């Protein structure tokens, strides 16, 4: 348990600092790289929770495709990549107050509701997160949403091509 807790805290601190970096940095490429750190940290947390399949999908899809999409978007929209650009509107203080207030409400709620419930990484949890169990659930209980999501991906693909093409 100690090793898992140590790993959790190291990854959590890295993720928290990188998340602040995403929203505060003045360099847009650095923001994308900080996002990679956050996404990788989330994948590590999934492993700590025994969800090995979701962790791998997270790395593959988010870091491997979504971040690349972001970098292409930055490049194609000629966002100034110099490293000293002003990307914020003038609502920094009210937004910070709102975000901190929301965080306070959420943390109070969570501490009150869940107290010190524990997650032990025992065989049951690891069996729940195994690829076999997840695949079983997707193709039995959740096969209809799975097919609908396939249709959605097709629609998104066609829509993105139609919207973004130059004619």
């Amino acid at each position, binding site marked *: 348990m100690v090793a898992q807790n140590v790993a959790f805290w190291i990854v*959590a601190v890295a*993720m*928290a600092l990188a*998340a*602040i970096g*995403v*929203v505060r940095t003045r360099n*847009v490429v650095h*923001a*994308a790289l900080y*996002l990679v750190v*956050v996404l990788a940290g*989330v994948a590590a*947390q999934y492993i*700590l*929770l025994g*969800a090995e399949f*979701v962790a791998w*999908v997270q790395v593959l*899809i*988010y870091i491997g495709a979504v971040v690349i*999409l*972001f970098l292409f*978007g930055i490049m*194609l*929209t000629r*966002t100034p990549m110099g490293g000293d650009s002003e*990307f*914020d*509107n003038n609502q920094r203080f009210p*937004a*910070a107050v*709102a975000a*901190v207030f929301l*965080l306070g409400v959420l943390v109070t709620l*969570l*501490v009150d509701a*869940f107290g*010190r419930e524990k*997650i*032990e990484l025992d065989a*049951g*949890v690891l069996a*729940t*997160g195994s690829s076999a*169990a997840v695949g079983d*659930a*997707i193709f039995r209980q*959740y096969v209809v949403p799975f097919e609908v*999501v396939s249709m*959605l*991906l097709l629609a*998104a693909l066609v*829509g*993105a*091509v139609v*919207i*973004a093409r*130059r*004619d």
Partner: protein
Amino acid sequence: MVMNQFLILAAFLFCTGVYGVLVRRNGVLVLMSVELMLNAVNLNLVAFSARLQEVSGQVFALFVITIAAAEVALALAVILATFRIRGRIDLDDAETESSPVPHTAGADER
């Protein structure tokens, strides 16, 4: 491991994403903040899945990942189209009758 440490980390990510969405002016950076929020939600789902030993939470997380990827693709397509018309993506460009946004000369005229 206490379950709350995952949930509070997810709450922190979510609130950071909220700050980013409210503050950033560039469309791509707002999208990145939305990704932060989606990942926070996923972390919540997987944490509960581990606590209750229910695989449904992880299946939901997989669907969220898929839909988020599709959403990013579409949103970037819209941002690209907007950039072609206006020459810049600035979410503070609210075009109205009295304050029109200057369109770039030689933009794609249909």
